[in-house]
């Protein structure tokens, strides 16, 4: 009996919990945004200073290094994270058809859940594996300065936050109840990768901070 009372209470609390977003308001339809291909960034190679901070039940952790994102001649993309001494933490690869492969990974990183989490981060950032068309353009709270462009995902959906002058300022991945991952971006044109990116994993409780390094560091 006590069990059912607790269970009922949990259900009521869950039912009353605040949704991830306020009620949707249909935005003015912009044809220039409705295809995911319009959002794909164009780049040859970009180098970021990368800092990772997180917490578990027992302790905090911190990692740092360099993150290289490079497009190869055959339109494939590599994402390589290495420490300051040049030791590779991981090397992820997407071929031209967006098929994913792990080229190299340090044993301590080689966990399926972690790989899938990081893979999703980079796919959202690089706009890989999105459906061909968005399934909605919205405003929230009457704020018409930012359009929330929504694409459905296998689990949940993703919003790309785009200002009226076409700058991407954020990416938000959520399910029906909660936000899962939030990207804070320094404003950048849709075809560019931002100078500064902060990726907050709200459930996994870690943050990735990326700051672009001038091109002359890569030869």
């Amino acid at each position: 009996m006590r069990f059912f009372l607790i269970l009922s209470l949990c259900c009521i609390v869950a039912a009353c919990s605040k949704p991830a977003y306020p009620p949707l308001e249909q935005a003015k339809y912009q044809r220039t945004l409705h295809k995911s291909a319009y959002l794909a960034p164009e780049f040859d190679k970009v180098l970021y200073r990368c800092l990772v901070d997180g917490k578990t039940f027992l302790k905090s952790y911190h990692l740092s290094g360099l993150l290289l994102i490079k497009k190869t001649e055959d339109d494939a993309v590599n994402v390589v994270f290495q420490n300051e001494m040049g030791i590779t933490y991981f090397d992820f690869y997407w071929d031209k058809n967006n098929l994913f492969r792990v080229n190299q990974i340090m044993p301590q990183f080689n966990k399926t859940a972690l790989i899938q989490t990081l893979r999703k981060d980079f796919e959202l950032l690089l706009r890989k594996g999105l459906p061909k068309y968005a399934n909605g353009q919205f405003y929230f709270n009457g704020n018409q300065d930012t359009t929330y462009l929504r694409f459905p995902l296998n689990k949940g959906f993703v919003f790309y936050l785009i200002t009226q002058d076409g700058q991407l300022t954020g990416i938000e991945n959520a399910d029906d109840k909660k936000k899962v991952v939030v990207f804070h971006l320094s404003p950048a044109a849709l075809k560019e990768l931002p100078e500064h990116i902060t990726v907050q994993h709200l459930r996994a409780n870690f943050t990735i901070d990326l700051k672009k390094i001038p091109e002359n560091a890569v030869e």
Partner: protein
Amino acid sequence: MPVLHKIFILLFSLNVCFPFLLTAQTGYVPVKDMTSIKAELIKNNQATQTVSSNFSQTKSMKMLNEKVVSKGLFYYKKNNRIRIEYNSPFHYLLIMNGGNIIVQDENKTSKVNTRNSKSLQSANRIMMDCMTGNVFNNKDFEVQCLAGQGKYLLQLTPVAPSMKNLFSRIDIYLEQSDYSVSRLTLQEAGGDYTVMDFTNRKKNISLSDALFSNP
């Protein structure tokens, strides 16, 4: 402190401590009797109070045909104190002082006591071994010594499984003239490698203790 971070510091220490490693290279021939070299290394390190140098680090990525270059400053002071300071293309600072390791990147500073960590103690021991010329006794690596072009080349091949996962070999180049480390090459199992070149090397100059304390 996460395991990965510890491993990173261990790797970092290995890099700094074993700059004698190189693979079979043209102009280098195996040294059959290493006794005199070992003795000279110990003698030299006993006489070395401080070391300072610039370094240039180039990471070569085989599959991507890319090179990432970093630069900075290296300091050593007896006993067991090291400071590695990256200035370009980012700021990053690593200080090893006795049983403590301090890491600073951006505005974040982390301090770790190695007393509760075998891997970090191991890193510290490796550092000490290197500075005292005792690298030949490390059981995690097989050490070969070659000579040529005015240098000794110490090739460290990992035998411990944990090291084998990370490196195929570490090469340390020592100048025959003063036994200073002039180059370090770190080869990863996947084919990528990192080269650190140490230039403007100075021994036994005055170095403030503040260089090796909490920034």
